[in-house]
């Protein structure tokens, strides 16, 4: 009873405060704007009721899109110049620091919308960021980041970041290019070739030091502590991982593993701009080693690289780019590597479903500018995974071809729409806001 009195008094106080507070400038301006037309009843045209009804349905998506564009516009001003190690002309200028919250949206066929936001506070030499994504009750992530820019003796960035992510939509189809016929997989009876759905809870810390030794060349040293816990997807029923694979046959499944990983990477990128199509050459290589630290004790070595050429055709902004990406992981001890550490195919623009010790993606892109800051592209990717170099089965290549449109600044892609079709199915992707792809190589795992 007493608490109700308190609530009641609080409400009275709130109403009184609202009643007696001075009128704000925006309210007075809104009143002024409303009286300008001098209309007591606005005009109505035939069909307006139908339009209004439709507008009710489109109100939310329209404002989500507006919000995304608003966020992207802030992003252009704030973090366009935030590569991992800024080039000389790319250092964020900070008149007393800047703050921004940038909405993001990622949607693709077969997956829930991932709506999120990235908050960035930039004080010039120190920048912090916080990214939050939400795609449903069992899909969310939060990623804080702080980076210190050091200018002596050479331009470099020291960064620390965390990630906590719960993803109920993970899929594992077994190892090999054709998991159904690969003897390393142990499917439940009558489930050969099916994919198991699992929920992964992941907590990761990364510390990295990146140094730009040359205008086009940077070196990155990084270390991480990663904990991954795998269980059946909520609501997956017959498609749950445990209903597809024989229990105990998938290393790392239904358990929690912590891994310490250290990596060195080098990247040579001679392109003048990475958002706007421009010619150049990209070569990147990395190598690292990981140790599981909580009882399993598996040890692995990871290495790989990518190479791409960006060749102008007729115009400087018509770019043909062949690219080859090789990722590999090798077991260094007797304990098998967790299945979710195996090499995937993040560069393949079809569905990333194949895993093994080696992954090879070859692609050919043609991208051209249709108007300043808006590009179009045609692409074709092929992909194959294998247990070793001598086990590649190039007859079983998966492929995907597609078209895309993108909005970019000089150095960032700020949004894209792509449609890809191949022997793995059709995939439509819409992404708006600054993508997650910035930062060191470990973000691609």
């Amino acid at each position, binding site marked *: 009873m007493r608490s109700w009195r308190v609530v009641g008094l609080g409400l009275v106080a709130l109403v009184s405060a609202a009643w007696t507070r001075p009128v*704000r400038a925006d309210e007075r301006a809104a009143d002024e704007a409303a009286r*300008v037309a001098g209309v007591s009843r606005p*005009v109505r045209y035939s069909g307006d009721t139908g339009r209004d009804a439709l507008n009710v349905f489109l109100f939310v998506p329209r404002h989500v*899109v507006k919000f995304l564009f608003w966020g992207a516009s802030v992003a252009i001003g704030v973090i366009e110049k935030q590569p991992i190690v800024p080039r000389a002309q790319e250092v964020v200028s900070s008149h007393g620091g800047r703050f921004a919250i940038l909405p993001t949206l990622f949607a693709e066929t077969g997956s829930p919308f991932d709506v999120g936001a990235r908050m960035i506070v930039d004080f010039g030499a120190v920048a912090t960021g916080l990214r939050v994504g939400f795609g449903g009750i069992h899909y969310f992530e939060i990623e804080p980041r702080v980076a210190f820019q050091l200018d002596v003796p050479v331009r470099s960035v020291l960064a620390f970041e965390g990630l906590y992510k719960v993803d109920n939509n993970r899929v594992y189809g077994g190892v090999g290019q054709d998991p159904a016929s690969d003897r390393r997989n142990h499917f439940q009876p009558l489930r050969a070739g099916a994919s198991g759905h699992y929920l992964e809870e992941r907590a990761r810390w990364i510390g990295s030091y990146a140094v730009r030794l040359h205008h086009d060349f940077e070196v990155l040293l990084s270390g991480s502590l990663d904990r991954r816990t795998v269980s059946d997807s909520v609501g997956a029923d017959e498609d749950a991982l445990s209903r597809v694979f024989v229990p105990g046959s998938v290393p790392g499944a239904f358990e929690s593993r912590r891994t310490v990983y250290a990596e060195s990477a080098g990247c040579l990128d001679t392109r003048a701009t990475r958002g706007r199509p421009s010619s150049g050459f990209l070569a990147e290589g990395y190598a690292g080693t990981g140790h599981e630290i909580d009882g399993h004790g598996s040890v692995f070595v990871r290495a790989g690289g990518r190479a791409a050429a960006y060749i102008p055709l007729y*115009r400087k902004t018509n770019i043909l780019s062949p690219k080859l990406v090789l990722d590999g992981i090798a077991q260094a001890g007797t304990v098998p590597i967790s299945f979710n550490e195996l090499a995937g195919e993040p560069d393949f623009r079809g569905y990333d479903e194949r895993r093994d010790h080696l992954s090879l993606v070859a692609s050919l892109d043609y991208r051209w500018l*249709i108007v300043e800051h808006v590009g179009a592209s045609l692409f074709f990717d092929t992909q194959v995974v294998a247990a070793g170099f001598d086990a590649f089965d190039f007859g079983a290549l998966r492929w995907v071809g597609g078209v895309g449109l993108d*909005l970019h600044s000089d150095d960032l892609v700020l949004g894209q729409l792509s449609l890809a079709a191949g022997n793995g199915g059709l995939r439509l992707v819409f992404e708006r806001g600054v993508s997650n792809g910035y930062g060191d190589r470990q973000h691609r795992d």
Partner: protein
Amino acid sequence: MKRKERRGFGHRVSTTATLFLVVTAGCFYVPARFSAAPPVTTVRDDFPIPVPGQSTVPDELRYSQAYVEYAVVDAFDPRRISESEDVNALDEVPASSWFAGGVPTDSDYVRNGPPRLPLAEVASERKLPTGVRVFDDADGKRWEVVADEPGRSGMRAASGAITSRLVSLLGYYAAESYPVRLGGARLLAVRYPAARGALAGKEALDVGPTTALGTRIDDPNDVVDHTHRRSLRALGLVGAWLGLDEMRPQLLRDVYVGAPDVGFVQHQVVGLQDALVAGRLVGILHDTDADRPARNPWLALATLGFLPKEGAEGSATLTTSLGLFPEFVDPGAYDFAVPYPPALEAQPPDLYWIGKRIAAIPHSSIVAAISAGDIGPKTSAYLDRALLARRDSVARYAMSLVTPLEVTRLVAARASSSPEKSFGIDCQDLAVRQGFEAAANTTYYVDVLDDAGASLRETQTATPRGPALHVDLPAALLDEWGYLIVRIRAVRDGRAAPRSLELHVSGHGAAPVLRGVRH
């Protein structure tokens, strides 16, 4: 059970009927009704606010807004493009922080006069476009000084000085601009940042470009979406007249006027040095990139970027102090090089409004503006001819979109006992007055409606005397209904104007009051 089924059927019927009523209720045209309040002539949007942050519009944002955001958001909006929201009951834009309103004169433009030499360069607090520097004159007044192109001495100076006067005559807050000679070069001195209108003399601070979409979120006075502002929608036609090839960010700027926390944001037209198609000429002179994408983005998309390179455009002009400013312009086909969303939303009444303001600028004012450009007699004569020809083109086009009648007075019914007594409306047909149309070929069809849009009598015709039109209306109708809508549509050479004029009249026959006008 049977009863339950009947109730269910009845419920379905009533739901269907309700839905039918809801949908069909909006299937008919219902005209607006104007309130009895007198028309607003000044909008108060100058309430004290804190100083907003300095904003920027990078090119990628401008392109994103113009080519992607506007189109994508628009695709999610099924509503009709709204009428402009900064328009009063008489279909005019009242004075506000956006628009000076009224009928400006040549003398309204000059508040400071040219800068008093010598000029001393000072550091700018903001990033300036290429070729722009900041100076204080001998009186301590701040000026932005725009350099000209090598070999094009005085071109941008003349463009800015001439067109800022003309834009001011249209009612916009145009920054004072004068050609000056500095170190042997002819430059354009723009008094900026400085308050305009009655507030000239107050301290002023540039806070960035006026955004094309939405509102400025740190300006509580800015409550009308910029795409819904007639003063901005009309800029497409202003651009066609004055040869503005693009709405660059330095053209429209927000200025904080007054001391911190007691001032407000005024919206000014500042960087007019690119008018008279000087901006495009500068672009051509600087454009050494033969690899740029094709000008037509759809062709660029369809041809995968392999459309033949377009090569350099011609840059020959009558004199070096003139941009690529031809006498002919097709206002219906005129587009900015980068789409400007408010202009894309312009409706016929918006274009008519600015068209009549353009047409109303007297020739003597155009001559005075040209003389301020400090250009030779040959260029002046050409420019005079071109500005007049283009003025006629845009005004003719704007007046062809509506029934271009302006009410000059309402004539009360005379006191008599006759049941046939009438009150009258006197109008001027601006298209006839300007000589764009012939009165002899024009007939007006006049309808009288009640406030719900129902016709109260058969359509009647009226013919003008020269540009003047007098329409007699039965006083008894106004006495009976108290509020009438008089709809007049011009038919010229057998072709009806695309839109009617709607006049909303209230009161009674002996004292009619014009409540609203919609073109």
